[in-house]
């Protein structure tokens, strides 16, 4: 939760809201950090198959602390397990899955998302930063739908949803939908468009904390 909001969804509630929108049987790549929570909120009756770009399809939850195999890890380099039906493969195959459009969904964190769907999530461009990109640019270029899961504002109270990204881009016009602590917002041809407000949050509250106009009339249609 950012310091600028006192109500809205918790991280787990955002994760639950994301999971609600994922169809049964989807192949999903969850970014490191807050997107990983989605795996804890799979709706009853649905199965998602998790892909980790370092070479495993059918990734399962973390093993008990101190357990697991140091060579059975996820893209965040943390130990994981595998589910029935899992498969190991090399990096060329893993990114063929990504770049070739075989994954249904990628859920990523964000530094900034622009009204046209541009995403910045790998670098603040600071002079002393060590540049590191990993698979983020491949994911946004290749996966069918890219969801962003994020706090609505930075810790400093700046909007993360902006007219134009000022940080270096991860990809152009790649984000489909944004899930924040305040709202669910689509990226449309006409810019940001409201899908749903978090409980206790009104439209003006979200708009004030967003760096670009939000179309309000989209909500009913998008929720169908």
């Amino acid at each position, binding site marked *: 939760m950012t310091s600028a909001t006192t109500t809205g969804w918790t991280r787990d509630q955002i994760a639950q809201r994301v999971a609600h929108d994922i169809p049964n049987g989807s192949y999903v790549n969850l970014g490191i950090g807050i997107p990983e929570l989605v795996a804890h909120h799979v709706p009853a009756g649905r199965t998602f*198959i998790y892909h980790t770009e370092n070479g495993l399809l059918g990734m399962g939850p973390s093993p008990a602390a101190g357990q697991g195999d140091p060579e059975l890890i996820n893209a965040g380099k943390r130990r994981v397990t*595998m*589910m*029935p039906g899992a498969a*190991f493969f090399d990096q060329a195959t893993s990114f*063929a899955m990504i770049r070739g459009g075989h994954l249904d969904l990628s859920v990523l964190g964000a530094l900034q998302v622009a009204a046209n769907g541009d995403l910045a999530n790998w670098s603040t461009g600071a002079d002393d930063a060590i540049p590191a990109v990993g698979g983020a640019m491949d994911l946004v270029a290749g996966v069918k739908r890219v969801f962003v899961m994020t706090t609505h504002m930075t810790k400093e109270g700046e909007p993360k949803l902006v007219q134009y990204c000022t940080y270096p881009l991860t990809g152009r016009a790649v984000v489909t939908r944004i899930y924040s602590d305040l709202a669910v917002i689509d990226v449309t041809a006409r810019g940001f468009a409201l899908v749903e407000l978090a409980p206790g949050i009104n439209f003006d509250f979200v708009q004030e904390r967003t760096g670009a106009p939000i179309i309000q009339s989209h909500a009913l249609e998008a929720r169908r």
Partner: protein
Amino acid sequence: MIDKRFDSARSAVADIFDGATVMIGGFGEAGSPIELIHALIDQGAKGLTVVSNNSGTGLVGLAALLRAERVSKIVCSFPKTAGSTVFPDLYRAGKIELELVPQGTLAERIRAGGAGIVAFYTPTAVGTPLAQGKESRVFGEREHVLEHGIRADFTLIKGRTADTHGNILYHRTARNFAPMMATAATVTIVQAAEVVEAGALDPEIIVTPGIFVDRVVHVPSPALESALNEAGASYP
């Protein structure tokens, strides 16, 4: 619960539409998904573009599909195997278009299509008739031609074992084009001699991960082209 099983070859190929591009696995008879091809003949789709290394032999399988005049174009590296008469006759009669592609370029174009690589430069075929009309470019003093990825609407392949998630193991040299073709189609259909529950296969030895496969059909005793031909079979 994920279960990609279809109850028959017939139901698995039901939505292949007129004019579709269909990749068909196999190098000669090894890996040729005869039962899926026969189901496609029964189904009736026409005007197909087929991507396959060969053009079939005798009057069964791929040759039978061609003979039924359902295929308007074939993308192929070697359409004149011994025992292949259907394709030569159609080709000489001007009833089928041929795009001839070197075997390695064909494999790589299919892989590229499945891997989101739109095009690549290869030294293969430079200076030959198969590079005519293609862009070429010199890298490091050597000429290369630009080749484009291929995608299809459907892929038909044969596996030895599949699980309900669509993970596939193959049998020996029947593997050939199947792993690439599985990646390059909107809908990938596999016939497998054995179908097991997810979790029954060692994750280390899976050749085609299930993400590339949409439909699994159990065909316990698949026919072989050579055996059918020796028996004088024709389809339908």
